[in-house]
């Protein structure tokens, strides 16, 4: 198992957000984590990468206990993050945003600058521009490129379609399917259900900090009552 969460409980101060979340992700597979606003999707990501360490439960990566580990330790083990809101460094140029990830993680990535530019041509055009001057779609491309530059075996994507025009959402879907073709494992948090179902092998639905469904995208698509109750569609 590449990634496993076992009974994770996470709090923000006194507020109990995750109530024993367990999920599993195999190498090369894509898992979508769905749910309404405030269901605990982003908190799940934050618990995995140590931004908000779980109060109890375990996070295992490649069989190793990484609960509450430092972010840089996880990055160096092969976890890449495309965070909610993209979090591009505005005071670094596009090229620097990528170079930072390539050098700091010290992993053999296979994702050279040339390859990144080939996958994301827009970033080459904007290479010398500051991160703050990019459009939302360009920022999202950079956030994905930057995470790939770390050379991850597991990519965590938190709402990559958020606030983007349909054309760009389609482009992001294309990129995710291409990465999946290459055998990259992904954990995808999404509000955009059709996008998520188009790439996922397995779907988990989160509600009020608890997993209420896990199964194939087909099983979810067929369950109208479940979709209505937990996803509002």
């Amino acid at each position, binding site marked *: 198992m590449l990634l496993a969460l076992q009974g994770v409980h996470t709090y923000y101060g006194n507020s109990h957000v995750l109530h024993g979340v367990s999920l599993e992700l195999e190498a090369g597979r894509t898992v979508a984590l769905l749910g309404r606003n405030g269901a605990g999707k982003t908190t799940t990501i934050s618990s995995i990468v140590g*931004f908000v360490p779980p109060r109890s439960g375990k996070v295992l990566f490649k069989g190793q206990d990484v609960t509450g580990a430092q972010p840089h330790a996880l*990055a160096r083990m092969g976890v890449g993050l495309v*965070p909610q809101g993209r*979090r591009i460094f505005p005071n670094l140029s596009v090229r620097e945003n990528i*170079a930072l990830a390539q*050098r700091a*993680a*010290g992993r053999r990535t296979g994702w050279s600058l040339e390859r990144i530019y080939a996958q994301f041509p827009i970033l080459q055009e904007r290479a010398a521009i500051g*991160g703050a001057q990019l459009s939302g779609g360009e*920022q999202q491309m950079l956030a994905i490129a930057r995470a790939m530059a770390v050379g991850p075996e597991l990519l965590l994507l938190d709402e990559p379609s958020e606030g983007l025009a349909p054309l760009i959402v389609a482009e992001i879907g294309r990129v995710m399917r291409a990465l999946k073709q290459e055998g990259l494992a992904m954990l995808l948090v999404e509000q955009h259900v059709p996008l998520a179902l188009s790439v996922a092998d397995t779907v988990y639905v989160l509600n009020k900090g608890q997993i209420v469904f896990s199964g194939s995208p087909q099983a979810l698509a067929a369950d109208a009552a479940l979709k209505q109750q937990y996803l509002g569609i």
Partner: protein
Amino acid sequence: MTLDTFVLQLTNGLVFSLLLFLMAAGLSLIFGLMDVVNLAHGAFYLLGGYLGLSIVRWGGSFWLALLLAPLLVGVLGLLLELTLLRRLYRRGHLDQVLATFGVALIVADLMRAAWGAYVEVVAPPALLAGQVAIGGLAFPTYRLAVIAVGLSLALGLWLFVERSTVGMQIRAGVSDPQMAGMLGVDVPRLFAGVFAGGCALAAFSGVAAAPILTLYPGLDSEILILALVVVVVGGLGTLRGAFFGSLIVGMADVFGKALLPEFSVFAIFVVMAAVLLTRPAGLFGRATATRGA
């Protein structure tokens, strides 16, 4: 004020500004990177000066003092970061302020015990003891040397932060330490290094300033307050802000003392208030990571 006095005061202002910059650069980067207000920064400045004094007294040269004192204070800063500050990052500002203020008080008392409560003067090195005549005006050689060294250090620091890999990590860490970590940057190590480097720069400033400002108990907090004003005026976490903030505050201080001695402290805070009214985040306000489009 005649043109001659104006030019001399301008030189003094530049000297003071650059000494202030060496203090404020560390303070600002530490503040921007770790979100810690290091109230012990002034104590490290004065400790650097006193260590320099002792090194000169024990027969070392001024040059040795300029090298060794920052090194010692840098190591002390590193130990402080590893043992005390590291535990406080997850706590609020109040805990950090109390802890670093406590360190400042302890170091100040230890310095008083070790070096006494007198005004100590450090002679500039013999090589720079004289004066240089430029256009009929006599400039103290040492002050011109401080300007040259200060400007070179400022340029060197700027190149380090803007062009080196570690500098890139520092800039990324200033805007979003968590995300820098997720890209593989060992943020705790970066924090420790920047903290130690900032302390060493403050100590360097303390040694370099000793022949001009002398050394006495209380100088630590005087310098700290000015450096904090610089950080507020220039904006958090940027070298450019620390540089131009230092120029403004340094010049305001020197010219304030020359023109309106009764209001010299007032002059600095007028400048600070004016900047805050027009640019609340400081001249080069801190850039934070973008959240959403």
